[in-house]
Each structure stands twice: as structure tokens, then as C-alpha cells.
């Protein structure tokens, strides 16, 4: 989320004075609210035991690993999203997930990456992996307000940003676009 100042600065630069005159307060208030939430005190586990959290975080870290190509699910704080979501949005899935989690070795987090990957490969088709994959992706890429995607790390990994307003060119291929030239009529064009 952009800060209030950052947002106003960007929007102003984009020449959106008329729009801002009517909507800046509402948008900025929403952005500030979201920002305050994500600045809340250091989180603590609410719906997972430390052991459960350790296992889930280890799985998440194999789904989107850290490496030479940059940080992954662990650094993005995906586990904090998952912990919170299992008490809120996905509270209904908590009991089954924690039951299924017991099918992984209690010391899963202490295994090396090769062993962990072999274990995950063996459960990839099952519901536990599907659920953990789903929650990992959500924790990586949902708004930081929900506890994951720390410092927008998930968004940055993907090359996504949310700055509320853009101006063309948007990408490489529309940079030197010469403008639309109507084609010759289609042969046998109908209606």
C-alpha cells in the first residue's frame, strides 16, 4: 500500500487534479487505515502451535524457496498470514488441515531440502499439499494488511506493484506504438 503522501504525489504527477478533488480524502483514508494495520506490533501465533507453524513454514519455503534468485515464502512472512487466516477467513479449514498435517514427520522442518522435496513430491496430489499451496500463494500475494507479503516481497518477486494510477506506456511493446491504422476491408466480410 502506498503511503498517503506517496499516493498523492504520484496521482498529482499523473495530472489527476479533478479526480483528486472529489476522491482524494476517501482513498487516502482507506490507504492510511490499511497501512496502520500492517504496522501493528510484532505478531505472535494465534491459531498454530510453534511446532505446527515450523512445519508449515518449512513446507511454504519449499513451495516458494529462498535462493540466489531472491527471498521466498519464508522471508515474505507467509506463516503469519496462514496463522491469522486459520482463525478468520479459513477458520473452517483449520481442524482438517492440522489433522492432515500430522501425516508429515514431526521433524519435517529439520530435514534437508532434498528430503523435504521427496516428501512433498509424495503428497503433491493430495488435499494437504493443495491446501498448503493455496495458503502459501495467498500469504505471498495478498495485501500485506493480511499479515503476509511483508514489505510487498511477494509482489516484488512477481514484478507486480500497486500504485493506484499509471500512465502509458505500460510495457515494452506499447512504447513505440505508431497508432491504429484501419486495415483494408476483409475479403467477403459480412454484416
Amino acid at each position: 500500500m502506498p503511503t498517503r503522501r506517496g499516493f498523492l504525489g504520484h496521482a498529482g504527477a499523473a495530472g489527476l487534479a479533478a479526480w483528486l478533488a472529489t476522491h482524494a480524502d476517501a482513498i487516502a483514508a482507506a490507504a492510511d487505515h490499511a497501512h496502520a494495520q500492517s504496522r501493528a506490533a510484532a505478531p505472535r501465533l494465534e491459531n498454530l502451535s510453534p511446532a505446527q507453524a515450523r512445519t508449515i513454514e518449512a513446507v511454504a519455503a519449499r513451495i516458494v524457496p529462498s535462493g540466489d534468485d531472491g527471498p521466498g515464502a519464508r522471508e515474505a512472512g507467509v506463516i503469519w498470514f496462514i496463522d491469522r487466516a486459520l482463525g478468520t477467513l479459513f477458520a473452517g479449514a483449520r481442524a482438517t488441515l492440522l489433522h492432515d498435517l500430522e501425516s508429515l514427520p514431526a521433524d519435517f522442518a529439520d530435514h534437508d531440502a532434498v528430503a523435504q522435496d521427496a516428501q512433498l513430491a509424495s503428497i503433491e496430489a493430495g488435499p494437504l499439499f493443495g491446501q498448503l499451496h493455496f495458503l502459501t500463494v495467498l500469504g505471498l500475494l495478498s495485501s500485506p494488511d493480511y499479515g503476509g507479503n511483508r514489505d510487498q516481497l511477494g509482489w516484488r518477486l512477481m514484478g507486480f506493484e500497486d500504485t493506484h494510477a499509471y500512465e502509458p506506456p505500460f510495457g515494452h511493446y506499447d512504447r513505440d506504438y505508431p497508432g491504429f491504422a484501419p486495415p483494408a476491408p476483409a475479403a467477403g466480410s459480412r454484416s
Partner: protein
Amino acid sequence: MSARRYRDGETVDFAVIGSGAAGGVLARELSQAGFSVVLFERGPRFTPGMFRHDELEYWFNYGLINDPKDSPQSFRGSPDEVARPILDGGTPPAFYAQMVGGSSNHFTANYWRFHEIDFHERSVLGAISGTGFADWPISYAELEPYYTKVEWEVGVSGLAGASPFDPPRSKPYPMPPLPVKSSGVLLERGARQLGLHPFPAPMAIASTPWRGRPACIHCGFCMGFGCEAMAKSSTLYTMIPEAEATGHCEVRDLSYVFRIATDAARRATGVHYFDAAKREHFQKARAVVLSANGAESARLLLASDSASFPHGLANSNGLVGKYLMFNAGAEVLAEFEHELNEYKSVQVTRIVHDFYDADPARGFYGGGGIDARIGPMPIVWALETPPGEPRWGAGYKRWLRSFPRTLKAVAHCTSLPLETNSVSLDPQLKDAWGQPCIRVTYRDHPDDLAFAAFLQARAEEIVQAAGALRTWRYPVVESTASPHLLGTCRMGDDPESSVVDREHRSHEVRNLFICDGSSFVTSGRGQPTMTIQALAFRAAGHIGRHARANGI
């Protein structure tokens, strides 16, 4: 805003049920004609600042759409199956934005006019066995002035004359096309390479300031999101404020109409509804206009049964809810060398209509259009791993990183009208108000899937011709859910084979009019809202004429 308030005991001219693409137009037209109108909306009213860039809330927590936690639905593939309930966590088979402005808030805003062929395709191609394939009772020429009205009064950006396939038009677009994106440039490049005729997409999004609204700020949160900039031409920002400004229209939000009342003379007398506190009310009206969408309009008719209408209102022939059409579709993911950044701006800037018409030589029925876009935003994009790509590990992470260099080429296609595809009342499920829930029965006709696969292959050829490094075809699968809710109260001249006449009056109840996606006879090519609104403008003229002539 000089919005009028009416009392329940006061008889208004019109109770309009549903404030979406059609209901917003009807309320505006009827109130501008001087009639008193209460516009009923089950959902809340958002102000622009309430719309958020929150993919989790809007795509996974029913932030804008109907929520199975209070209104579950059920689904089955065919009538001989027992439908399974779709509860919290599932996608409702018939989904729509439940709020003032309805799905015109969260839609993608592709505004294709139907072509002339859409209205008389049955006559041209002949019958298709096992289907309800039929001509419309109206022609493109009859609807053309109302398409123009939508473009100018609701607000559509586009370029007249850019497509050799476009039907005749009486006026150019009021606003130029939105700025082209990289996906548009590539679609155009690839299509031209293949001798096709790409053109700027008509979109119901302001490209310049228009009728008091600002131009699009290209924020990117468009499909599935509401517009905080007021640039998307939803009825929330266009028709509804204009209706209220007449002083004759009250928008009654958080008001859930659960029954249309009729008397012994088989006339509608008003609507029963719940307020936000679930208290029952009755609003008297001289006539009822039903525009709740192709699923909810059918449900309300079926739930409004009585001694005079034992099978549901306006349903003596049993056709209410039948011939549901979703619009089939298919997608191709394509990766390019450089960044496209498709997450910016509107979804679609170029389209291809070269495969719009059906071609019997293919061996199956179908027609459609192709566009290029990002599709859903990061979460859904990351969950929709294409065939052959890893779902985890270093390979998955590499694939995630390709996000800014990808586009989705989407094939938008026909669905044949089948009597077995339907909205009906689930025999068991009740919603949080004790009302019967929607049961959707749906299985794509084999031709729908065959054509979707055909058009997907054309889309793939286009992105390959544009220089894609890699492409993936997502599997073409049977539909289980859609926001395109069409055909369930089809229009026709024959009361035996249709629910409403060519003026949207129900064949059985003189002062009950039904106008929304349910009126469609055939599906069009996958972008229905433009036609829903043109029908609504046209219907409003007829309804007003009847009302003035004491004909309701």
C-alpha cells in the same frame, strides 16, 4: 441528490427489482419519463472510496458477489443427478455483484454490440437438433438506436469503422479507445501477420472525462473489482444518480424482494421484501419490472407461485429458468521476451472478430471473439498453473517471475440454448431468509466445447505469430460457474415457447415486465452487457408507452 422517498403504502408506478446493468437503465428511463419508481437492490450501496484493491477479499471472500454463507446455491451437470450444495469456499454457479449497480461494478466492461447475424442465426443456419436454437423476435436494426444510446449515455470508448465485421451504426463512439497496452499491440501484430483484422476494443470505461466522470487512471484493478475512480461506466455512476436527480426515483438498497404479489385478476400488485433487519414489507406498485439477472429473476418468478400460478409466476409453459447460457470460453497463456506489465490499466485494448460467424464447414456450431489481457491479478494468476509447469520449488518461483512478461489470449464463445440447462429452485436448500435457493443444472453442448477449443487454437496461433517465447493452452473444461446469466426468460412472439414478448412484457401477467440477461434467445459471442443495456433502453420506451396509455 434530491432522491425521493416513498412509503410502503403509497402506490408507485413501478417497482424495479435489481439495480444492475438493466435495472439501472430502466429506473433512469422510467423516472425521467415522469413515473414514480422504487428501485430495489438486495445489496449495499458503495461510494467510490469504498472499493479496494484487495484481491483476497473480492476473489476469495465474496467481497462484492453473492455469498454462499447466507445464500448457497447447488449445482448438477444434468437433470438426473442430485445437485450438490456449493457452500462457503466454493464459487456460486451463478455469481454476480450484489450491490447497487450490480455486476456493472465488477465487470470487465467489454462492450461489443451483437452483430446482425446474432438475431436471425437460426434462419440462416437451420435447426440444431436437441437444442432450443431460435431467432430473436427483434432484429439488429430495431436495437441499433439503443446500442447508440448505451454508447452515448452510459459511456463507451471505441473506434467506429475500425472493424470490417462491425454491424452498421448511426453514430461514432463518444470517446476514443483507451490507450493501447502491450497485450493489444501484440494481439494486433500477431493477428495482422495472419491476415486477420484486429481492432480497438469497445469498453464501457471513460477514456476521457465524460458526463461529469473522470477518465480511467489505469490502476489495473478492474475485472472483479469496483472502480474507485468512477471511470468504469457502471450504472452506480451513470444511470442511477440520473434517476435520483429526477426526484421520482428512490433507490432502496439492502432490500431483498422475495415475492412478487398477484391478485385474482392475475395482475401484479407489488413486491414483498425484507429490509436490512429482515423485517417484511410490502410495496404497492402499478407494475413490476424484474431485472434481477438471469439467475435471480428466474428464481423470484419460480418462488412467487400462487393458486393462480401454481408453477411459479409467468410459468404456465414451464420455460422460466430453462435455456440458461453461460458463454463458453478458453484461454491461452503466452510468455514474451520483454515486460508487458498487463496488471496495469484496463483488461482489454484490442480484439479479433474474424471468427465471429459460425461456419458449418467446421462440423460444429459456434462463433466468437478473441482478446488479450492479464486476466486475474497476482493471486489467481499464481494459482492457475498451466499444464506442464511445476506447482512448487525453484521452477514454480521462476514461473511466478514471468508474470509481467505474460498475457492471456482469451476466446469468448457461444453457448447453445439447451432446455436441460436451467435455474430452478433447490428442493432442500434455504437461504438465511428462509427462501428457496438457486439450483443450477448445466452441461455445455459438445459444439460449445468444440468451438472453444477451435478458437483457443486460433488465439494460440496469433500470440505465436506475435513472437511469444512459450505458450500454454489451459484445458477446455465443462462450465460449472459463470457471471454470464442468460436466456432463462427468453423473448419470443409465441407464448408457448417464450416467457416475455418482444416488448419484455410477460405473456401471462399484463403488468409484469422482465428485462435483463434472462431475455436473451441466443448467447451472443461472450460479451452480453452491452446488449442487456440496449434491450433495457428499448424496453423502457415500450413500458412507458403502455403506462401512459393505461395499458399496464
